[in-house]
């Protein structure tokens, strides 16, 4: 496998709900070691595109390919097995289990021990230790025994990221990882993403609205608008391109250079 071969591809990926085409013929390739930000106004189809890639939604037409293999027909569990990791935009955890138990489930899935019924889960110190190390990475180790339902929102977002780390995926999909976080918590997550980018030769996809974040982290920016891919390229070029100025100014009457353009989908 050559270094430049695409790890993840979407080919003419389309989904329509009734008459509404949410994602329209989006073709894109992502290769190793790259961090791509996906931007676009609310309702542009960013999260829908993510859902098509990670399998929560079934495409109307087109393909998703991972390492050249067509995975369009697979469910989310199989895609996760094959290396697609996803952190959700709206926090999506196991509320009545502890933070540690949440991560432990991800580690157990990565180590394929979900079927083991004859061993006590507590006997697998290796699994618990790994889970704890991921909690440490997101600064949550001291909350290990807290029920997720009792965690503050920012901590839940961090846990969401820890779960994806624990899956050790080939493709990291962050869907607005810093949304709703307090200002001092944001750097923890951003450093973590930068760290993954630096140390692991993986594919990172990031849906993010904070333009300063996007500019500083990304190698590439993809712009979605009304379900279509309208721009794709180097961050500085894309931001300067007329279509982006038009799309964003049309959407929120704000300058695009810095600050938050639009907060939530």
């Amino acid at each position, binding site marked *: 496998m050559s270094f430049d071969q695409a790890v993840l591809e979407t080919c003419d990926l389309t989904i329509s709900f009734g008459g509404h085409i949410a994602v329209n013929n989006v073709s894109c390739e992502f290769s190793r070691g790259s961090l791509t930000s996906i931007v676009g106004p609310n309702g542009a189809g960013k999260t829908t595109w993510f859902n098509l890639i990670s399998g929560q939604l079934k495409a109307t037409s087109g393909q998703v390919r991972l390492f050249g293999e067509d995975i369009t027909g697979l469910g989310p569990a199989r895609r*996760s097995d094959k290396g697609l990791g996803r952190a*959700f935009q709206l926090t*999506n955890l*196991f509320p009545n289990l502890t933070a540690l138990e949440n991560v432990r*489930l991800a580690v157990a*899935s990565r180590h394929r021990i979900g*079927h083991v019924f004859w061993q*006590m889960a507590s006997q697998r110190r290796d699994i618990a230790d790994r889970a704890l190390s991921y909690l440490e990475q997101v600064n949550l180790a001291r909350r290990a025994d807290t029920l997720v339902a009792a965690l503050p929102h920012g901590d839940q977002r961090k846990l969401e990221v820890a779960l994806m780390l624990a899956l050790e995926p080939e493709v990291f999909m962050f869907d607005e990882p810093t949304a709703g976080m307090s200002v001092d918590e944001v750097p923890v997550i951003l450093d973590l993403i930068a760290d993954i980018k630096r140390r692991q030769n993986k594919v990172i996809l990031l849906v993010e609205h904070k333009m300063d974040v996007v500019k500083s982290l990304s190698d590439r920016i993809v712009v979605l608008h009304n379900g279509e891919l309208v721009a794709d390229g180097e961050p500085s070029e894309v931001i300067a391109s007329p279509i982006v100025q038009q799309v964003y100014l049309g959407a929120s009457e704000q300058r695009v250079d810095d600050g938050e353009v639009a907060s939530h989908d």
Partner: protein
Amino acid sequence: MMNQLLSGDAPRSGILTAVLLLIVISLAFGPFLFPGTRAFSTLGTICVFIIVVSAYDLMLGYTHIVSFAHTMFFGIGAYGIAMATDGMGNSFGAIASGLAGALILSLVLSLLLGLLSLRVRAIFFALVTLAVAFAFLSVVTQLYNLTGGEDGLRVRVPRELGPAFRPFDQPLPGFSVTRLITALVSDPGNPLQAFKGAIYEFRFTGRELMYYVVFFLSAGIFLFLLRLVNSPFGRVLQAIRENEFRAEALGYRTVYYRTAVVILSALLATVAGATFALINRYVNPENTLNFELMVFILLMSVIGGMGTLYGAVVGVALFTLAQNYLQDLLRWVGGYTEGIPLLAQLTGPDRWLLWFGLLFVLSVYFFPTGIVGQFRLWAGRRRRPT
């Protein structure tokens, strides 16, 4: 050692531990502590239903699968034994083939139900299981030349499991707790006499042997399930209960897990049904397949505390005792209320279901997490006083 046996999932409450010990000791030494056929059948029922309800709790409490077909699998086990011994005679071979046939039928049906849960979810799945269970009930009632219809079947057990078999030459000594308590209450001044009066002798027959088979089977299955729910597999089940969508996104193919749970639970219910047939020696639609029985299983599960397994033991013991002895209690109370209008009417022995319903409503209202959940809550509060 104890931690290994309980898979690290201790009762975590002093009162609960005491209650469980009381139940376990009463069951383990049952024939030596409680003379009489009625007590014997109550003990047997408790052992059998601990299997049924803990298997049900695996589905309902740990995975949030609501199924009303649990009695169907119980009935398959019971009828498997009854029909096999009816057709092949009272041999162990007949029991083995009856059980094997029942297990195969349960496996096929539960596999179909499990796969169905891929398409039909939650309340709709529950309704489908209800329909299947009713269909099965009417099939059993209609095929009367095979199943005995409404009259049911007598189960002819092998000689070794019947009253004629005596493994010991001498009668064994027993110590009747019931007689002791009655004597102590009616004549508190004479405890020595009460103690002497409580000693009795009984013959250990094949029936007692069968009881111990059921007891050890029940204990074994319970400990197995306790291990299962505390294993990595059990953790996945809880993940599915909490957030199935997320479990799937983490890479767990939830339909496999759900199907495995439905099948395992069905097979255990079948085994329980088979032991019920052997210990009760009479099988009919009412005591194995009835919808009322299904509701009772659900109640035992809820009263005891769903998703705890220990709740199954407590729920079954309490429910079965209430079902068998609430009438006696009311008859006793009725002795004092005689002549008082209304009260006398309310405390008649045939009003037991009214009181039972009231007990149920109160227990659900005050203990929404079941008896076990409530005990643990209290124990937790005591450990960390606020």
